[in-house]
């Protein structure tokens, strides 16, 4: 890999031993994937995936401290994934004891480290950092050093930024150095589609289900998706961006997709059309029966498959403002139709702290509260990532949460019936 004189000097120790290690890490990473050079990180802000003070992550906190002590701090401020704890989210005594005294006992000290390293602000804890209220929205062509899979796929696909599907810690290394190795999704060639996905459904497919089907089929490849314009049109409005946010998160978690193109809608597909599709691309046709097949094959991880749900999470990735408003109205209408006043299953909507603040200024906040739904900034995945929560029958319409935890997936319509009317 070609290194500039400055990069070579850093590797040789001109900026100290710690910066030399940062550079060595990036060089080894790049060489593993055939990078030809380093390119500057050009986004205003970075985003880190590691937001949780999990006790088992002590080696990561030690590494962070080593960076801080050596002054190896990024010039970029950053947002970070959601906090793992919120006292407003239902948890029994034992769960709270384990959360606070065992699992996340280092949360406070880790957040102090994040502030030293350049946290944007107190509200910068969300997986959906690109939402307007949060303010970490890269521009087209920006080069990023991010790792959160749902944010990477959104930035690449919807915003036209360029970022590889990095691991945690590697995200901060690139940001500290100010450049990242040039390979994969940073290159024009790496952004071409090796799959042509033809959507031939009779009705608009649910984003989280369509993303799951495509992710499981193409894994880490780039899909070019046709047949969606009848439902999405050709404009990246709030509704479509929310759809693509959820769709992308499912492709990234059920597979390992870092970039997708939607014909006539996403920026590069609009510019280049089917020239983005490689000649030898494989073809995957999706119809309603295929989506049903995919959904029916999800394993049920509950100990008792017939258990009554005890908790419902909606908002993984975090909900946008428009989604919060839409869900508020849907829950109200569902309750009215069923004759109930409050949701019948404890239900938590999750969103970015900055979006939550904006939402709370609207009339919908009081209306949502009246339905009994709890609004939180928590990461539901982190909440469920322990043996006690894992035994709870939790339902969700997030395919990311389903994939990484024991939560059971239902479509949005099914979830709505369950939380407003009841039933197993």
């Amino acid at each position: 890999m070609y290194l500039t004189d400055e990069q070579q000097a850093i590797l040789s120790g001109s900026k100290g031993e710690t910066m030399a290690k940062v550079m060595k890490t990036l060089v080894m990473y790049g060489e593993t994937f055939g990078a030809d050079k380093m390119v500057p990180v050009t986004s205003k802000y970075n985003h880190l995936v590691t937001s949780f003070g999990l006790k088992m992550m002590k080696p990561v906190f030690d590494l962070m401290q080593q960076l801080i002590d050596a002054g190896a701090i990024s010039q970029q401020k950053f947002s970070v994934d959601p906090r793992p704890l919120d006292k407003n989210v239902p948890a029994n005594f034992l769960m709270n004891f384990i959360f606070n005294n065992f699992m996340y006992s280092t949360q406070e000290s880790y957040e102090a480290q994040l502030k030293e390293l350049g946290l944007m602000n107190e509200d910068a804890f969300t997986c959906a950092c690109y939402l307007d209220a949060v303010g970490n929205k890269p521009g087209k062509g920006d080069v990023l050093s991010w790792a959160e899979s749902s944010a990477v796929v959104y930035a690449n696909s919807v915003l036209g930024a360029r970022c590889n599907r990095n691991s945690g810690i590697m995200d901060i290394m690139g940001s500290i150095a100010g450049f990242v190795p040039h390979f994969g999704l940073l290159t024009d060639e790496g952004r071409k589609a090796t799959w042509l996905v033809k959507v031939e459904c009779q009705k608009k497919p649910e984003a989280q289900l369509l993303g799951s089907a495509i992710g499981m089929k193409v894994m880490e490849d780039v899909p070019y998706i046709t047949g969606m314009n009848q439902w999405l049109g050709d404009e990246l409005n709030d509704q479509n961006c929310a759809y693509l946010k959820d769709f992308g998160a499912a492709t990234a978690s059920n597979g390992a997709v870092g970039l997708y193109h939607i014909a006539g809608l996403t920026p590069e597909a609009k510019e280049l059309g089917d020239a983005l599709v490689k000649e030898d691309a494989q073809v995957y046709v999706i119809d309603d029966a295929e989506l049903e097949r995919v959904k029916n094959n999800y394993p049920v991880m509950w100990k008792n498959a017939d258990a009554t749900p005890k908790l419902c999470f909606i908002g993984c990735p975090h909900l946008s403002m428009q989604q919060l408003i839409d869900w508020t109205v849907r829950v109200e209408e569902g309750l009215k139709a069923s004759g109930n006043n409050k949701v019948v299953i404890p239900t938590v909507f999750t969103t970015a702290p900055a979006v939550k603040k904006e939402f709370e200024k609207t009339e919908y906040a009081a209306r949502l509260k009246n339905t009994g739904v709890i609004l939180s900034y928590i990461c539901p995945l982190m909440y469920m990532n322990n043996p006690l929560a894992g035994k709870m029958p939790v339902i969700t319409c997030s395919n990311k949460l389903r994939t990484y935890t024991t939560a059971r997936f239902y479509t949005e319509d099914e979830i709505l019936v369950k939380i407003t009317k009841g039933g197993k």
Partner: protein
Amino acid sequence: MKEFKGRVVTPGTVTAPALVSHGGLNTLASFQKALQFGDKKATCGDQNNPDLFGKEMLGTALCLPQTIGSTTGGLVLYCACAMGRQPACMLFSKPIDSLAAAGSILASVWLDGISMPVVDSLGEEFLEYVKDGMTIHVKDDGVICVE
């Protein structure tokens, strides 16, 4: 005995018993329980991986196609290495993925005295041939001897 030639990602030599996963290794799901609750043998906690679930990963020659799952995967692997719960080596039949590469490179650069040779691109035949308990010798040049 049979030899396979791959590409060296992080160098080193080691001899260890094989532990084989035919599906992708979900790093977070596999290591989290062991790291969180002090299991020094690094018993695999991933219920979705029938090849590895409940088996001890510490000190094994872990043979796999690639890793899958959360992008915390690299830092989880780094933590496993720092806590001395890592496999003796990781041997990939496919080209390594970015998460496993990050974890093994971070361990190689930032941790003193930790050796976990990683070799990738060993081919599908490697994963078809190797079985749990076979003895694996990893050489410096990416040659893997299976007996």
